């Protein structure tokens, strides 16, 4: 069989009803998701026996515990994003395609019945007509970035086990609804439980990348199965980095004083406000502090830019950050 191109492959996501029990792409709940790339892999550190037996090379190999690990990169499309965010460390509210995700304190990934409860997902990847099924998957990290004007997300996936799918499904596709260069705005305001961002969008941001890291770890346990038993979560680290036109020292002084700020990235289609948009993505750090702020004279012909990183902080009476989606699927 000749080698195939990546473009001929496809990826399915299906919510699990039991954690770690694989749901094939032939299931009615499975959705084919258009992606840019994936690198999901069976990850194992085999045991090599270092026996001392008059030789300086390992003597044997035994399979060891394994889990699934890799990235899935895709353009942000509200038609599909909630399927992945529901499999991360969030509490979900909303209905009918409009959802709000706030970070939860779950110690490990879980699957429970109900449309708005977190669920692990089964991911099926078909590479050159050959299926790879991954069960018990969660998004251990999520990164949102504006790349060439397009809002892109990358998920760091951790999963429990791999299987060979019986059927590969027949993927169906819809027209993409992407957030392009004219869709985005970044806002900065004083931190608060519900920042108003009344001053309008900031015009100084050159790029924006937000990273949500739940420090997820695959947990293997002693049992007659080498696959991971579940995925645990650790500290939630929500950060962002960007580059700003350096026009005054206001934000620099906020950095030195560790003043907290609210920051919002908003991407809209079909309307100029979140309320009026038909498809929308909004990530708000309700309270954050600048972690680094670097500005210098790079060169004779270089713009003076400040390279900035920030970190979300907890806030009394509200979530440290929220993700809002409009135009999503009706989760079931």
């Amino acid at each position, binding site marked *: 069989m000749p080698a195939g191109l990546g473009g001929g492959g496809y990826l399915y996501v299906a919510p699990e009803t039991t954690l770690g029990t694989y749901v094939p792409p*032939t*299931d*009615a*709940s499975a*959705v084919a998701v258009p992606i840019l790339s994936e690198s999901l892999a069976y990850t194992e550190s085999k045991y090599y026996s270092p026996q001392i037996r008059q030789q300086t090379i390992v003597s044997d190999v035994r399979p060891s515990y394994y889990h699934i690990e890799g990235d899935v990169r895709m353009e942000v499309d509200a*038609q*599909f994003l909630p*399927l992945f965010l529901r499999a991360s460390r969030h509490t979900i509210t909303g209905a009918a*395609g409009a959802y709000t995700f706030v970070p939860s304190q779950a110690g490990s990934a879980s699957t429970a019945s109900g449309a708005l409860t977190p669920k692990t997902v089964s991911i099926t990847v078909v590479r050159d007509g050959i299926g790879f099924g991954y069960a018990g998957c969660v998004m251990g990290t999520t990164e949102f970035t504006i790349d060439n004007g397009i809002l892109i997300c990358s998920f760091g996936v951790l999963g429990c086990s791999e299987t060979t799918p019986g*059927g590969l*499904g*027949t993927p*169906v*596709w*819809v*027209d993409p609804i992407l957030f392009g260069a004219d869709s985005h705005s970044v806002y900065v305001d004083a931190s608060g439980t519900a920042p108003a961002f009344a001053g309008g969008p900031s015009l100084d941001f050159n790029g924006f990348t937000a990273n949500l890291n739940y420090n997820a770890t695959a947990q293997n346990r002693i049992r007659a199965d080498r696959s991971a038993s579940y995925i645990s979560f650790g500290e939630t680290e929500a950060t962002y980095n960007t580059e700003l036109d350096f026009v005054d020292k206001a934000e620099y002084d906020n950095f030195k004083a560790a003043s907290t700020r609210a920051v919002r990235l908003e991407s809209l289609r079909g309307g100029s406000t979140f309320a009026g948009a038909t498809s929308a993505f909004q990530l708000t750090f309700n309270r954050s502090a600048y972690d680094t702020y670097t500005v210098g004279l790079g060169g004779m012909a270089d713009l003076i830019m400040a390279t900035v990183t920030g970190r979300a902080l907890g806030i009394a009476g509200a979530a440290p950050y929220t993700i809002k989606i409009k135009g999503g*699927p*009706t989760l*079931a």
Partner: protein
Amino acid sequence: MALTVSIEHDNFPKDHPIDVGGILVPNYGSTELTDEQEQLFVATHGKSVKDVFKDTTNIKVEGKATVSGSDMSELVPETVSDTNTPTVVDDTSEPDPGGEKE
């Protein structure tokens, strides 16, 4: 009646156009295939429409196919053997120990 393809996909709203193997079908609706659509489908997928979707629970195919078995063999490309495979020569002869030829 020609083949009709219908789909019920919970991830998308009712009547949302969905590309089902190259055929545009409204969600929770159906599309009747023309002869040309069916032939193109078979040529693309290498199987009949019913065969491709037989294991898919939310896609139904009803009606009578217009592409027959003999038509299918004309539409589906055969696997062609590679005629450019180099021939391996088993050269076990000793090299000529002689010097330069005059």
